[in-house]
């Protein structure tokens, strides 16, 4: 999928995360993660985000994540929603979301 426009998903509440995506035409994925638990879980959070984006075939864009202690499943869901909102079409391909 291609991120065609800016989009934002999620909330700032505990156990949730706010995900902002924007197109960047640079050919790379610029992923910025802010989290209160970045030391303990930074790597995991990053891994989940990478996996999720990879399954959606997103290869470029700016992704900013404000994490409030979210579990993996919520990170997946929010990142997927953000990409879908930012993509031109909102076709759900469940294979890519599983």
């Amino acid at each position, binding site marked *: 999928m291609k991120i065609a426009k*800016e*989009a*934002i998903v*999620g*909330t*700032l*509440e*505990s156990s949730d995360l*706010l995900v*902002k995506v*924007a197109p960047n035409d640079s050919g790379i994925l*610029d992923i*910025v993660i*802010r989290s209160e638990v970045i030391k303990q879980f930074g790597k995991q959070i990053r891994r989940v985000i990478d996996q999720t984006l990879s399954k959606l075939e997103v290869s470029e864009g*700016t992704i*900013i994540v*404000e994490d*409030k202690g979210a579990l993996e499943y919520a990170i997946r869901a929010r990142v997927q929603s953000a990409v879908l909102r930012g993509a031109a079409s909102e076709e759900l391909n469940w294979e890519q979301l599983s």
Partner: protein
Amino acid sequence: MTEFDFSAVRPEDSPQDVEEVKALLAASQLQFDTEIEVLVLCRARDRLIACAGLDHNVIKCVAVAKDFRGKSLSLRLGSEIVHLAAGRERFHLFLYSPPHNRDLFQGWGFYPLVEVPDLVLLMENSPIAIKSYCDLLRLQKSPGNRIGSCVLNANPFTLGHLFLVERAAADCDWLHVFVVREDASVFAYEDRFALVAEGVKDISNLTLHQGSEYIISRATFPGYFLKEKATIDHSWAAIDLLLFRAYIGPALGITHRYVGTEPFDAITDNYNLDMKYWLQEAQSTKEPISVVELPRMAINSTPVSASAVRRLLTEGDFDSIKNLVPATTLDFLEMKYSTAAQSAEGAELK
């Protein structure tokens, strides 16, 4: 399980809500800002307990009732206003706050940009936006030891502006010119920028930059939580200049900033004093930027100023205007404000 009900209203549609908002703000020593386009309200059983306002891409008037101050309500408020702004295609948001609320807004995903100690803190909702902007600027860095800069409103671009820019460019290895993207000008930003571009096109050691969100115009600066006008003026200047010194200047290697003196305009005069303070004298981890004041170009000992041009425009006195502006500006003014259109627009120009 809706303990709290969130809603969004436009101030002009709900004077009753605005009254309640004013009371809530007053309890936190804040005033209502009349530029707010939309308000997010939070009610617990009809009682207003939290609010936040949006004016273009600036969040203002955030307050939570004392007895509901715990993190989670404020975070919900933050989520609501951020989503409201996103619904209006505004993703890059700013926030001016009394410095003591820094932690609260960091919880909202806002990051500090610059602070005027004890007065105001400017934050934005991205950890990387300013850095990305500076990265872009850096691509336009030019070699040299003396790198100058000018920031122009150019409302409209006059011979006075041209004079300033030509002198500054002659004085420096390179000159960077910025046009303020201010909404409250008489002339639209696109027009002002185009006139500047035309006017300076023959200056070879010059880069013209689009206005950015990091050059703060006085008109859009929210001083609603500061008590006196003088404080507001100083705070605006400080924020604008701190951003320049901390981010824009270093990205381009700027060593000097050129500005025209305005002996008859106290506001500009004060601003120039603030400029010398914040760019040169104030304690900072960033290199100082020398301020160079150039006397205004004068014709028949009258300084050439944009305000003079605007005044003449309301009188339809294109003959006098001809002496004050470059040909390209004159052509534009005549085309837009010829006698036919003038009667309709003349009233608007003041």
